[in-house]
């Protein structure tokens, strides 16, 4: 565990970057430091590997002051990822990744073998091994940066706005990749960002810092969304925090119905029976069970339903894996007001109305409350 103990950073000109900050960073989880520019989040991160020395206070790593070991030994035990990747342009991708193992005295062959392994882990094609950084896209370079930080298998990973310089689509991919890698490796990650959505998506714990380097709130993301500590945090979280909080409730709580579903080759009798339920529309699927669209029972021609005349079904949600937010989004997107639940292969497992989703949200809030938000974060669901 990393313990930041009442740390202050004051520069000679009197500027205070970090002001009596105390944080306990749990092992094997992602702790995000987030805040506006000038809040001292990067300074705090850089104090953990002593790129910046605190003016007051101390930082403990597993109970020992980090100043008790040689600075380069400390740094080699912590992976370090920075915004523009900071790759060595004169070295190949493979040799970039092998840097820290080489510093630790591994022979070239072993270091390169390890680097090749890391390339695979971060999703880089092995054909890139002999390329130089300038031949890679921004997203690929950042993957190399992550691989390089992981190469010596350090227990701690420090990441300073690593995904800020890439476009939103690439960023989303990198974030998901990081969560996947973290599932496999279980590092103690300290992650700095100015993007609250990124903080909520990645963080097990989120520390919101305010300008002047003071801690505004330190909580799991769901709790942050439910109970912001003050106006500053609430303002920083931005709009839609109610909707965004739904990301922390699993859609498995939803009871889906299979009644208003017919296959594309259904008989008149099937259409009549299925159409008699509460739903004003029927969801038509293809013969594999994948959704085609919604239609009114009276409009559907038995035996040969024309998919071109059906209403769109919005974005289906993966039942159980995705959150209530995804289900609600699906319902809002469909003109019928019903969301379509699918399994991992895209086959329909049932449908659910906005009304049922609304009831599930109400009961989730009732069960959750303030205390339950913590549990919600641990049982985080994607989407």
């Amino acid at each position, binding site marked *: 565990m990393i313990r930041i103990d009442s740390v202050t950073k004051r520069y000679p000109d009197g500027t205070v970057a970090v002001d009596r900050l105390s944080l306990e960073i749990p092992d094997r989880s992602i702790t995000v430091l987030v805040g506006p520019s000038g809040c001292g989040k990067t300074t705090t991160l*850089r104090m953990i*590997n002593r*790129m910046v020395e605190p003016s007051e206070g101390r930082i403990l790593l597993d109970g020992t002051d980090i100043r008790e070991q040689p*600075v*380069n*030994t*400390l*740094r*080699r035990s912590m*992976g*370090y990822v*920075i*915004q*523009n*990747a*900071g*790759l*060595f*342009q*004169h*070295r*190949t991708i493979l040799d970039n990744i092998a*840097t*820290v193992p080489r*510093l630790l005295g591994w022979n070239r062959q072993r270091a390169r073998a390890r680097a090749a392994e890391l390339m695979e882990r971060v999703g880089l094609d092995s054909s890139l091994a002999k390329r*130089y*950084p*300038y031949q890679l896209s921004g997203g690929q370079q950042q993957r190399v*940066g992550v691989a*390089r*930080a992981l190469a010596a298998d350090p227990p701690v990973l*420090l990441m300073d706005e690593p995904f800020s310089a890439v476009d939103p689509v690439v960023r989303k991919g990198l974030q998901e990749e990081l969560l996947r890698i973290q599932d496999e490796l279980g590092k103690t990650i300290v992650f700095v960002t100015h993007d609250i959505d990124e903080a909520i998506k990645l963080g097990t714990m989120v520390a919101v810092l305010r300008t002047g380097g003071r801690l505004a709130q330190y909580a799991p993301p769901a709790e942050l969304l439910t109970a912001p500590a003050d106006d500053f945090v609430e303002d920083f979280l931005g709009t839609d925090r109610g909707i965004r909080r739904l990301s922390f409730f699993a859609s498995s709580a939803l009871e889906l119905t299979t009644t208003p579903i017919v296959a594309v080759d259904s008989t008149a009798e099937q259409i009549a029976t299925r159409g008699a339920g509460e739903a004003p529309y029927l969801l038509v699927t293809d013969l594999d069970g994948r959704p085609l669209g919604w239609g009114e029972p009276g409009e559907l021609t038995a035996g040969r339903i024309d998919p071109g005349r059906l209403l769109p079904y919005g974005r289906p949600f993966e039942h159980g894996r995705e959150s209530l937010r995804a289900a609600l989004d699906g319902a809002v997107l469909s003109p019928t007001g019903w969301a379509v639940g699918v399994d991992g292969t895209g086959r329909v497992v049932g449908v659910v109305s906005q009304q049922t989703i609304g009831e599930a949200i109400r009961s989730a809030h009732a069960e959750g409350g303030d205390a339950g938000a913590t549990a919600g974060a641990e049982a985080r669901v994607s989407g």
Partner: protein
Amino acid sequence: MNVLNFVNAFFSDGAHWHGYDGIPTRLAEHIQYSLIALAIAAAVALPVGLVTGHYGRGGNALAFIATAGRALPSFGLLVLMVILVGFGMVPVMVPLVVLAVPPILVTTYEALRSVDPSPVDAARGMGMHESRILFRVELPVALPLILSGLRSAAIQIVSTATIAAYIGIGGLGRYIIDGLYQRDYEKVVGGATLVAVLALATLGLFWGAARVAVSPGVRRGA
């Protein structure tokens, strides 16, 4: 008679190809003086440029030294040195080194300063020693610019080393000075041509060195 005829006459005269005043001897002397001067200048300027560039301090002092060095006339310095220490190699080397130090010093400093700071930050953050950062991270990236500084210094030395002949030492300057004195313009033009060719060869040498020494990852765009 035009210049090309002079050149042709000079090089086709067999007497110019052997003996202590032959082209091979004079060329070897010239190359020797140039190499010694470049080596001394590099030994002085490279370490200073690398260290000041790495730490980013002393830029103003360097600019002052460079300007002062460039302002000193080589020929004047040669005469001054002869007065101070008498004849020999030292009075020749001093002006050549003074001429070569500023371009090496200033470009090395600038080359180090222009290295992207983020790989340096990353290297420091992963626990690399400062000397290793300088030699393994900054130097390979700064190398094309450093080589260009050495190249201009080398070319200036090659063309200026002719002054050695003024104080009775060898080198290609012999042909120019003796030719002028004897009104043998064939000799003057021949000597000048040799100096020019040697300067071009130096240029080619540095181009080749850059091809070999600079990483393909850095070379693009340079």
